[in-house]
């Protein structure tokens, strides 16, 4: 047991910081991740990352990665998330859509998609939630019906982030109409310009983030866009989602915001206000708690061990720290937080997303509870050191 970075990982972080400092305009430091989801700048920035093999360092070399450790995956996330996430929505491709294709894709799908993702040339969105199937994804109704060499897709997905800029949708649809629950679901890699596929924004109060409605009206796609075996998409998604749950290292940015709030407390004479020091300590400790639990999950991933429980715990800690830092910012800035773009306003909105983006945090609590209380307890790490 030891908690220091290897020389390779430390060098990677240092080189990444230098790169970010030289390539990223200062305004990015103030952006909330997702606030600028796609732009020509992002494409160019990601192309440069891709040229260095830094967009997907943790991928196998044959697919555009550098065979780097899972640790470099999280270092990359920490450094870029803290800098406004200049990969835009590409972080999804890099974190879990690409790995899902590596895991379950055909040779043609890997050849076509992975090089484009690792080069930073393409944006994706995920078509998961429906009006009647949010956290309970297994209740989804969007249907894909086999018709010769094609599938015909009908249905509606909602609250989809980054869809307006996306080139592809990682879509879940039910392929067995007689199935229930998580059986009979398949994954499709659908170009967003396919006829019958429409995207419209859903107005929301989260000005830092846009949600969309995806409508599939007799969308015809070749069977070759199905990822993995028919009716068995759930297993692929479950694995992929564990990558998404800790893929956005929100604690890294929250820790920077906390540090900024500490500086502002000194500059603005807020020390005299009751509880400020305690709440700063709470925020700092919560961010570090999230960080160490994420590292625990990454350690399991690096050793190819089951990581579910560690990921569940890490995700809960991430949500907690976002909320604690947001409350602190609101407490300190009070009415100023009504201003769009203020620290309090932005932190409030990102914390409101934290418990839902990547799946409801209650699902993580369910997972932890299953470990402790059954059925099928997995108490290994709780019964010994």
């Amino acid at each position, binding site marked *: 047991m*030891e908690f220091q970075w290897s020389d390779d990982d430390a060098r990677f972080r240092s080189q990444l910081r230098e790169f970010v400092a030289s390539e990223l305009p200062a305004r990015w430091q103030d952006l909330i991740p997702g606030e600028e989801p796609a732009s020509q700048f992002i494409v160019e920035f990601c192309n440069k990352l891709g040229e260095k093999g830094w967009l997907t360092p943790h991928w196998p070399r044959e697919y555009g990665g550098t065979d780097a450790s899972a640790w470099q995956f999280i270092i990359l996330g920490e450094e870029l998330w803290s800098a406004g996430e200049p990969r835009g929505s590409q972080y999804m491709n890099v974190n879990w859509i690409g790995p899902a294709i590596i895991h379950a894709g055909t040779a043609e799908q890997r050849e076509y998609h992975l090089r484009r993702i690792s080069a930073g040339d393409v944006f994706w969105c995920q078509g998961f939630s429906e009006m009647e199937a949010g956290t309970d994804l297994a209740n989804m109704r969007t249907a894909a019906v086999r018709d010769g060499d094609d599938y015909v897709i009908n249905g509606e997905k909602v609250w989809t982030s980054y869809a307006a800029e996306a080139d592809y949708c990682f879509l879940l649809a039910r392929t067995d109409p007689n199935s229930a629950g998580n059986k009979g679901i398949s994954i499709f890699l659908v170009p967003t310009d396919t006829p019958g596929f429409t995207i419209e924004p859903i107005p929301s109060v989260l000005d830092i983030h846009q949600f969309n409605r995806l409508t599939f009206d007799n969308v015809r796609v070749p069977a070759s866009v199905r990822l993995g075996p028919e009716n068995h998409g759930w297993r692929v998604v479950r694995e992929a989602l564990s990558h998404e749950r800790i893929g956005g290292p929100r604690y890294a940015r929250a820790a920077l915001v906390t540090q900024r709030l500490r500086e502002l407390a000194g500059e603005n004479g807020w020390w005299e206000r009751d509880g400020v020091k*305690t709440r700063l300590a709470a925020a700092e400790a919560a961010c570090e708690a999230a960080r160490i639990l994420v590292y625990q999950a990454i350690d399991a991933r690096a050793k190819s061990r089951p990581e579910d429980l560690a990921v569940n715990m890490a995700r809960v800690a991430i949500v907690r720290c976002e909320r604690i830092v947001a409350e602190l910012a609101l407490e300190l800035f009070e009415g100023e937080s009504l201003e769009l773009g203020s620290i309090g306003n932005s932190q409030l909105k990102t914390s409101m997303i934290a418990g839902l983006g990547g799946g409801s945090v209650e699902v993580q609590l369910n997972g932890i*509870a299953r470990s402790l209380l059954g059925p099928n307890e997995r108490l290994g790490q709780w019964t010994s050191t």
Partner: protein
Amino acid sequence: MDFDLSRPQRDRLDSLDRVVEEAGTAADIDQLDKALLASDMLKGASVLERYMIAEELSRRGLASAFGLYALVCDLLPDGITSGRLAIVESSRNGPVRFADSASVLVVLDADRAYLHDQSTITHRPAPTGFGYPYAHVEVCAPGRRLPDGDAERIRARWRLALTGEIAGNARSAILKTADHLKARVQFGRPLATFQALRHRLADAAVSAEATSWLGRGAAFVDHPRTVLRAAWYASNTAASLVPELVQMCGARSFTVEFGLQVFTMRMNSLRLELGGLDRLGLELSQLAAREPAEQSTVTR
């Protein structure tokens, strides 16, 4: 980064297991501590290994003084300790843990540390019901002053010990509560099937897990600010877990026969020894001002 115990770390915890097993489950804690003190358990031990010993003893429900000793003894002058030690802040009142039987008492003021043996203090037992032996202490003669800087180092190690002890108690308290929720049937079904309780226990488990790892990480670094942050988290964990777990177990959690109190009352006492969250938060701010991090680039 490696979250697994290395072979030497595992060997050291195995030797702790052996001493505890040889002492027997019914062993008197005084006898166990004598056996631990007589062992070569700490020979060449890193701070992290010492921390793991403190955490493990508490996880086993043992009110041993050896965890605290393990973390602090290497900072004291050679040959000064031959038995248990106790630590107290001169500015704080109340009974002192292990002071009834300590061969050395360390008294800390803001930036100095003093050593006392039994010849320079008097003590009287203070029954508390918090799961550890306590005594009121009175200093009757000046102690031996330790070099400048030792107070801060000793205080940090003391906090590490308390963090590890809270982590160990928290882990076992959660498992004990989990067992209860699985076994206890109310309204015709096990309490473990009620989602309200499942989520509360899961939330508590996250705090306990983070407490362990923050403590281990802080022990590895052995730096006052990192330790203080872990200590703040541990204190907060103890404060939040105790009422939660007691609530989940119901009135039986107050009874000795049920056994949860071994962990909950100790968590109560350990967090009080760490100091209140405001006190720790204040000190964290003072340390942050003394060692400012790189200026944050985030402006909103």
